[in-house]
């Protein structure tokens, strides 16, 4: 879908939330839900940062690292891609304390989601680096660059452009996965919806608002990534002559 349609959907979603807020049936829940949404955004942002760091690190370790490091990175990626996000979340929340490591739930949430999405992200980074034409490496060598220099100055900037759309999808996945943290007692948007539902039984307005709020958050993220994609592609067209 184009950036135009997405913006239109975002405006429609926000307008619907605004219209619903006019009715007292809905408006009583909005402040509480918005407070939950703030926590959702906090976890999502920190989780995305961790995911990018882990993705880049794991990809580089797997491609250029020494054997033990490569092995470690591969194990990390296989374990976190092979099991469910919820299992990982529960493992960090319930099992880790039995090994004597008790983390606050917020940290568990960021760690579990960041590590989970980072494992998928490492494949994205790897694919994007492999997608840069061989000639770029050769030209860098001809210019007497070291491998590290070539990677940092020539390869990664070009790979970066190819990475943006798949990272955008992963960020959306992460944002949606933040709803799982409600199951480890964090008062995010989903948790607020659950508790409000249990105390008031106004199921329809609550869950309608929650769906719209998640939709608005996802759309903001999608539109932002689309914009970044367009900007980065401009730079590439000018710089590389590809």
């Amino acid at each position, binding site marked *: *879908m184009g950036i135009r349609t*997405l913006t239109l*959907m975002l405006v429609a979603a926000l307008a619907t939330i605004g219209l619903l807020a006019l009715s007292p049936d809905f408006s009583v829940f909005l402040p509480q839900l918005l407070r939950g949404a703030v926590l959702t955004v906090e976890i999502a942002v920190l989780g995305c940062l961790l995911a990018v760091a882990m993705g880049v690190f794991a990809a580089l370790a797997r491609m250029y690292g020494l054997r033990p490091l490569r092995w470690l990175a591969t194990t990390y990626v*296989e*374990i976190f*891609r*092979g*099991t*469910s*996000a*919820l*299992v*990982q979340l*529960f*493992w960090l929340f*319930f*099992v880790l304390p*039995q*090994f004597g490591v008790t983390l606050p739930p917020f940290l568990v949430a960021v760690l579990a989601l960041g590590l989970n999405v980072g494992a998928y992200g490492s494949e994205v980074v790897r694919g994007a680096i492999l997608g840069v034409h061989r000639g770029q490496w050769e030209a860098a060598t001809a210019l007497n660059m070291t491998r590290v220099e070539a990677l940092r100055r020539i390869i990664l900037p070009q790979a970066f452009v190819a990475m943006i759309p798949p990272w955008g999808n992963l960020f*959306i996945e992460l944002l*949606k*996965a*933040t*709803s*799982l943290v*409600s*199951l480890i007692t964090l008062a995010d948007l*989903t948790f607020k*919806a*659950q508790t409000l*539902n249990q105390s008031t039984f106004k*199921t*329809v307005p609550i*869950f309608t608002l*929650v*769906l719209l709020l*998640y*939709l608005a958050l*996802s*759309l903001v993220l*999608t539109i932002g990534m689309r914009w970044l994609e367009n900007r980065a592609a401009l730079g590439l067209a000018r710089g590389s002559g590809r």
Partner: protein
Amino acid sequence: MIWDWAFAFEILPLLAQAAVVTIEATVLGFLIAAILGLVLASLRIAVPATAWPISVLVELIRSTPLLIQIFFVYFVFPKWGLVIDAFAAGVIAIGIHYAAYCSEVYRAGFDNIARGQWEASIALNLSSWTTFRDIIIPQAIPPVVPALGNYLVALFKETPLLSAIAVLELMQTAKIIGSQTFRYTEPITLVGAFFLVMSLVSAAGIGALERHLNRRPTR
């Protein structure tokens, strides 16, 4: 001791029973996803006017968390007079969620069919239904089977969400064992191991399938 093998073996039969529920949910959920996804993708072609509403619907489903959709089906549908049990609600929610993803996969398959195939069918005086069933589908579906397989694995890995509405699948059983015995290490680690093994096996299966499909002569 942190890991108790005796306890792990003791709970294994309970977890095995729960694994059956997990697999049932996976199979039924994917059945809904695969069929409903194909219906949505076909409808877009058959009735062009539906293309825009369907793409908005797909975007809506893909932009909101599955967990909320599960709650929505479980809590909101009964208010509209449609009372369903937790397992059915979970399977329906998962099926609809992944139908949105699958419909995009099918769409990519249909988009890869050259226009000439449709035109040649018209020239041969085939009805559009016959064209769709005998010309388009056999060419469009096989190339996207691996992508569908990836969604099957993704769906499988999301079934633990059903524990949120107390379906007695693997995760819920592990949690109940944990809360009754105060030993979470073995049940949750075993559940993780189960998912890991199943995912690795299915990834290998999809890889083999992909190689098999690529080996077929190009048409």
